[in-house]
Every structure is written in structure tokens, then in C-alpha cells.
């Protein structure tokens, strides 16, 4: 191991779902902010055990949708009633009914953009590399092991105390991961 490498965080391995669920509750109650749990399949109740709030992606989708609807309405109004008015079938130059279907579709399109890019923004994606990926045992997170990772960047992090906490939570193996 390159000793000059910066430490990334403590990787604690767990053998079963019960242990990792209770470990997550302990880490949550200890007030850590920069940490995560990795598991091969979704564990029911993990969101609550980690104290995760509802995702904020919905707000991006909502704002995207609102922008899309406004864009559609304003665009059609400006093009048909201001910039190049053509009278068709005696209908008004602009009507919200006629402009609704395209505006509605733009609502969906921009709403989808909002949720996709909002998700990428909140996830800090895309990123080319993550320190955990070069750790060999971490691959077992897709097989039969469960991991809790607490980053050294967390304000509550302390080399000895955090290690003790994870040991007390029943981790079978704790390692330092470097960047």
C-alpha cells in the first residue's frame, strides 16, 4: 500500500442483513453525515435505519415541468399571435386549449430532463473513479457481504472512536480505504 495516499474512510464488513441494519441505526444515531451502506440487494427498512429523507429529485422534476409548460405556452403565443399571425378557421390567434397539447408534452420532456439531471447533480455523477472501487473485497458488496463506509471527511470521524463504534456494531472486518 502506498503510505502517502490519503485515507478515504473506514470500510466495515458485515455478514448478514440484521447486523448491517442495526449498525446503520447506530451510525445514524451517532450523528455521522458522510457515510453510506452497500448491499447486494435492497434491505427493507434501510432508508429509515439510515435516517434518509425523501429524495429531492422530485423538486427538479417539478421545476422542469413548470418550465416546460411555460415555455410551450409562451412559445406558441409569441409565434402564432405576435411574430407571424395567421388566421385559421376563424379561431382566435392564441387559445390555451390549442396550445395545451404541445405545452403538455414539453412539460413531460422538461420534467424528465429535470429528474434525470437533478438526479445526476444530487448524486455528483458522472464521476470517473471512486476510491472504493479499487478495494478488492468491496466487490463482495455485489455478492454476499454488506458494507458500511464512514468517510474520514466526516466532522465526527476519529480513527479510533469510529473504529470502536463499528466493532461494537458487530462488524467482522474493518479496513481503512485510501484514495
Amino acid at each position: 500500500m502506498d503510505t502517502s495516499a490519503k485515507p478515504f474512510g473506514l470500510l466495515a464488513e458485515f455478514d448478514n442483513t440484521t447486523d448491517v441494519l442495526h449498525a446503520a441505526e447506530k451510525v445514524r444515531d451517532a450523528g455521522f453525515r458522510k457515510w453510506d451502506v452497500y448491499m447486494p440487494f435492497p434491505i427493507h427498512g434501510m432508508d429509515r435505519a439510515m435516517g434518509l429523507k425523501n429524495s429531492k429529485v422530485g423538486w427538479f422534476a417539478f421545476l422542469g415541468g413548470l418550465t416546460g409548460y411555460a415555455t410551450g405556452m409562451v412559445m406558441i403565443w409569441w409565434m402564432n399571435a405576435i411574430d407571424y399571425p395567421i388566421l385559421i378557421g376563424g379561431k382566435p390567434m392564441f387559445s390555451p386549449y390549442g396550445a395545451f397539447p404541445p405545452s403538455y408534452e414539453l412539460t413531460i420532456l422538461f420534467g424528465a430532463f429535470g429528474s434525470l439531471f437533478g438526479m445526476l447533480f444530487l448524486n455528483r455523477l458522472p464521476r470517473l473513479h471512486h476510491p472504493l472501487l479499487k478495494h478488492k473485497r468491496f466487490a463482495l458488496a455485489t455478492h454476499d457481504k454488506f458494507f458500511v463506509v464512514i468517510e474520514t471527511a466526516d466532522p465526527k470521524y476519529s480513527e479510533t472512536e469510529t473504529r470502536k463504534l463499528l466493532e461494537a456494531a458487530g462488524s467482522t472486518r474493518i479496513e481503512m480505504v485510501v484514495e
Partner: protein
Amino acid sequence: MSQPNVSNPDDAKLLPPLDLSKWRKLPGQLMAIGGLVVLVGLIVSWRQPEEHSLKAFGYSWLLAFMFYLSLGLGGMFLVLVHHLFDAGWSVATRRFCEHLASLLFPWLAVLFVPVALLAPKLFGWMTVADPKADHALYAKLPLFTVVGFYVISAGCFGLWWLLANRLKYWSLRQDETGEALCTFKMRMHSCWGIWVFAFTLTLAAIMWMKGLQHQWFSTMYGVYYFAGSVWLTLATVYIITMVLDRQRILSQVLHEHQFYFLGTLLFAFTVFWAYVTFSQYFIIWNANIPEETFWYVIREQGSWFYIGMVIIFGHFFLPFLSLLRIDVKHTFPVMVPLCLWAWAMHFVDLSFNILPVYYDHGFPFHILWLPLGCLAFMGGLLAKVFLKEFAGAPPFPRKDPRLVEAMGLYHPVPTQISGGELDQADDMPDATIQPKGNQ
């Protein structure tokens, strides 16, 4: 466990049971007061001059009837989709939906009798002397004949009786025997039932509501009535589920997701209803043909225009924006007023469809007491029937094989077959070596 950030729906279960003793007399009171109002309305509208005689009463009664028909059909739809999708979560709420569906026969059929008797007064096409001279009517023969009307009406109630009766029979039988056969039977009846349901509901909406102005046509009309009906029913089911949960009747078989699912369905049907309603309007507006637009022109006269606005904002925007957030769907202080609001809005929506035929200058505020009286009378009667049926059977399908899913106790266990690319871990120091199948 302290969970400050996560709303805990289990807290609702800790609330004490409601004191319902004051409410027990309500159905009887509604029936008595409503019955009195109906009687007064009947006499008053009888004494009108010949061309108006009984019309005010007839349209009010039809409005109230179509309102409760929505509940019966909506309940039936929820039972049908439950079986068709082989759903687990809705087992807990299925039993009282079956009771709602069995209101269709005999009680809603009985309530249809005044409509059947007054039909020649309510449906202008019945008294057209020569159908061949009225092309809009001629094109709809033989459906729009007096015989056709009564045959279709009888056929609808007959099929609804058959379907509701079979679904309930096998459901109650499963309570006793616990046989898987009952589940298969209910599924089988749902398979033909959903088709029959779609056709009969569409026919009923066309014959009893759209037929009020037979010159008009809209292919969306059946779907429109369906969407509003299921919307109303979901709001009702939400309230019933909440009350039964609070009274500890369903608490054991509900888990935190049911209210969220019901709320999500209510949200979905809010959007679906708006989509159908707007499509109908938009296509007619866009085509701009007098044969179709007259229907909406009548509904823009006088106060009907503002009723239309109430529907746009009250039936769609308010519920839509309120239900957007995830947590609202299991927040009772928001959901209960919203569900009650859904009752008011469905009533306004049906008024907008039915009443302008007779009251073409604006919403008949001066005679609003009559439809409300009909609504109260029928509501009281049907509530009595519903409560009696509910008391006569277990409150949920107690031996349904999927009940355990509704309770949230069953989770599929991941196995080596169901997931995991085991090969990738072969070179790990402590990975279990998996025998390779064909080598």
C-alpha cells in the same frame, strides 16, 4: 427509535378509537330528512304545468342516482382489478369494496325505478314523433328506442348482479374453507367481468346521462364517467379504510403502504379524469362542428360557466397539487378533507352533465335542495344496506392466500437463482466456490 426525519405512519395506529355512537343514527336521519325533502319535491314538481311536470324531480333523482351508481361501479372495478392483477396489498380493503359492488343489485336497481318511470319526461328522444326525421336519433337505432332503453337498463343491472354476486359468493366461501379454488374462481369471473364491466358502464353512461341530449356524441363519455366514478370510490375507500383502521378492525391486516397506495391511485385517477375530460373538450373545440359544440355552448351560459371553472380548479388543480407530495398520501389531516371534497366535486361534475339539459340559464341554486334531498335519502338508504352487509360478514377476507402480503409480513427472499453474478466472486479469497452447471 428516534426518527425525526421520517414520518411514521404507525403513529396513526396509536390514536384512540373514534366514538362512532353519535354517527350510528346518521343513515336513518338522512333517510328521514331526505325522504321528506324528496316527497315535498315530488309534490311541488308534480303541480307544475304539464310541460314541466315532474321534470325538476326527475333530473334531481337521476343526478343522485348517477352519483351513487359511481360508488357501486367503482367498488366493482376495484375488486375486478384486484383479482386481475393478482394483487396482495388490496386484500385488506377488498371485502367492503365487494359490499359496495353489491349495492348495484338490488338496491341501486330499485332506486333506478323512478328514472325508468320518468324516462319519457327526462329523455327528449323518447318522445320524438318520427325518428327517421331526426338523423341524430335515426343513426342510433335500435339502441335509442324505448324498448332498447329498457332492455339495456335491465341487462346492465342483471349483469352487475351476476358479477357482484359471484365475486362475493366465492370470496365469502373462501372465508370458510380457505380453498385456493375460490381465488381461481374469482379470477375467472374477473376475466370476463372486466369486459362486461367496460361495456355495461359505457352503455349506462350513454343511455342514462349522455342520452339526455341525444344529438351530441363523444366517444370519451363512458371513460369520462368511469374515471370520475373510480376517483370518487377511491376517496370513499380511503376514508372507510382509515375509520376501520382507527377502530382496530383492519389494523392487524394493514401495513403502512396501503394508505400510500390508495392515495397514489387517487392521484392517478385525478390526472386520468382530467386527461379524459380535457381530451373530450379539446377534440370538440378543435373540430369546431356545431353538432358537437352545442353541448359545451349550453354549459357556458350564465352561472354554468363558473361551475365549469369550479370543476377545472376544484376537480383537477386542487387535488392534483395537494396530492403531489409523497408524504401527503398518508397524512390524514390533508387526505380526509380532500376525500370529502372529492364527493362535492363529483356531485358538481355530474350536475354539470345532467342539469343544464333542463336548467339552461345557469346552475339552479333555487332548487338545489331537491338534488341534495335525493342525495341524502339515497345515501342514508345505501349506508344502511352497506353497514348491514358489512356486519354480516368478516371485515376482510380472512383466509385469502395473499392476506399475509397485505399485512407486510412476507418478503421474497433473495436466492442464488434470483440474483447475483456469482462467477465474478470466484477469485475472491473467501468466496464460496460454486459448481458450474454444465462443466
